[in-house]
């Protein structure tokens, strides 16, 4: 997989920039979306290797996005990682049931975020070739 393409879904421009810059500087390609609906539209136009999404956003929240994406055939295996301040067990379990791959609780440290993203991408590469 050359240059994985990541969709970053986040309504806060400040956080979105931080996440995107972190990933871009590590050689990853990034597309930004500012809420779930925006992300869904972009996901239908391109095939992303990983989706990194906030939960609380206007128009469409993160878990709804996960459910929508999982209904699209080519996104059934794509890792979707939530990046959110929500940390309750109820929420994480809901995330798991919706089909999220993982859940990272904010605040995050950019370096750790990058490592998680890389490890998820690598395991996908190993599992699916």
């Amino acid at each position: 997989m050359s240059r994985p393409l990541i969709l970053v879904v986040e309504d806060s421009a400040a956080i979105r920039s931080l996440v995107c810059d972190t990933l871009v500087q590590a050689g990853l390609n990034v597309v930004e979306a500012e809420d779930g609906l925006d992300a869904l539209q972009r996901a239908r136009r391109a095939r992303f290797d990983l989706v990194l999404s906030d939960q609380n956003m206007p128009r469409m929240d993160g878990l709804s996005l996960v459910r929508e994406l999982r209904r699209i055939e080519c996104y059934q295996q794509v890792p979707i990682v939530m990046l959110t301040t929500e940390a309750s067990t109820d929420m994480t379990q809901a995330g798991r049931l919706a089909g999220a791959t993982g859940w990272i609780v904010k605040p995050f440290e950019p370096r750790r975020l990058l490592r998680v993203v890389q490890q998820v991408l690598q395991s996908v590469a190993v599992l699916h070739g």
Partner: protein
Amino acid sequence: MDDLSAYVSAYLDEAAEHLRELQGLVPSLARSDVRLDDVHAAFRAMHSIKGGAAIFGQATMADIAHVSEHLLDALRKGARAATEDESDALIQALEALEDVIAALRRGETPERGGPQRAIERLAVMTGQTAGLARHDPADFPGLAESALLPFTPAAGAADDDAGGFGFFVPPGGGAVAAPEADYLQDALLGGAEFFVILPGELEPDTGLPMLTPMPDRFASPKAASTLPAPASAPSRAAIEPPLPSGPLSSGQAPMLPADTVRVASARLDGLLELASGFSQLYGQLEDATRHDYVLRQRVDPVLDQFERMTRELHSAVMALRLVPLNFAFSRLTRLVREVSAQLGKPAQLALRGADTEVDKALVERLSDPLMHLVRNSLDHGIEQADVRRALGKPEHGQLVLSAEQRAGQVVIALEDDGAGLSRSRILERAHALGIALAEDASDEAVWQCIFEPGFSTTASVNAMSGRGVGLDVVRQTLQGLGGRVRVTSRAGKGARFELRLPLTLAVLDGMLVTAGGDHYLLPVAVVQESMDARTASVHTVAGGREAISLHGRPIPVYRLENLYASQSGPIPPVLMVIADEAGTYALAVDELHGQHSAVVKGLEGRLRGLPGVTGSTVVGAGRTALILDPQALPGLIRQAGAQHAPPPAGPGHVQPEASGDEIPLVSTSALVGHDD
């Protein structure tokens, strides 16, 4: 990525936006007809402020937002109903947030007291221990039932992965906990269905910026103040230069930016200047082709279009600077509650048109005058409850604050249903202060006196609206903003204060004049008329001062060229009649060039602190014009005249008229009651 400051300032902009939304929503939370949607919106906005604050290391903001969010959460779930106490505490928290954001934007360390008080109040109210949620594996019973291995750095993986909990759900259920580092990939490869990673502890200096986790500062409110401020200096990056984000491989989506762009207001000013440059170019083109009729026939349609597009560009750029007035209004609800409680006068404030949009810079500077007027109405306007009952008025004093846009201006009015202004007491006080005012002066002239320095109709200076500051400060602020304030009153029914302001501070409509070879701009709002000095019959009165008679009233004349150097000689040919709340006078200038829409710039270098000048602007061919403060001019010109010997009437001087008019040149502020 070696510096977080770019993100922090973007975050502060976002937080300020959420704050404005909250300021619009929170005052209505305690109302019986509050919409659940609004409660949810308030929660989401506060949640966003908190989330970003945590990521960008803004501990104080995160703490305020955390306790506020907790209360809003209870409200949205219906676990508690909002009374005025709740909405009050939230407004206090919003004010604390506003102050912190303002301080951070100025590069200062935020004051601690306000946030601390707001946090403690909300913490007590919601019964929280006021500590931020610390993530503990034990909080995740569903995930951590089995094989939970609490991670400690000593027992953990590589040193640089200290901290952070990962939970993995293996196939078939159950959960394992582990530091996320090396386990993540293994777990995923091993078929883990899901992982959860919780924030870890502060990491040592690394190449990437270090984000400060929120310290547990308010676990014990008493100890909090002794804790040091969190280290927030990001470490310098020692990472490789950023890779160019090259073209994407084929078939992939183009790198689309998100749909919102935030820009610094300085960039908008730059755009505005460009737009003004276009209007000047239009003027020059118009001018240059004026006498070539053949050419004009061909280019006129193009010129028309050029002019129209320039105007559109101008207003499009202006619109970018506008924000709703909510920002200035929301504090007032709480102020009314506080002050009416202190004075023992029950009162209510209704807001209308809080979504009216005005220049952001204006909104920020309007906050103080509005607070002052509200205080004044409560203190002097609204009667005591028993008096109101006796008068058959509702026991609660009613204040209505409204705003609307009218013809390029914003009109803000504060009305009360109190006693109204007392003509006799104002006249009495005016005489005591030596303000020249006839007994039969118009009501408007009498009311205007309350904006004079040192004016107060109450015998004892009240600690509430007093504070040693009078309404003169309100008028001064308004005039500084290019606006005006006037008051109307009906005895026994109440008073109405009306503020009129330009929609923006960035552009000033002015009359361009020259005097002594320099260009000056006079705000159009104060220019009543212009006249020819030769026909105006200027006469000299005592002390070599000059005056004209305008509509039967004597008006002092000041020579603009005397602002910085005393000149004598023939009176300059053009008289600009300047009228504002403080009085009417004529300003003698060499030439009037007409109206000019100026992009206002601050004063720089040697111009800074120049008396009588509020700003500068560029007027064609790179020439600078000084924007004059009409109110300050008479005093300054008199001063300049006093320093140099008073000029004797020169040979070419217009001879005084034979009329024995005694011109009351006490001060322009004495000349109240101009016609307009």
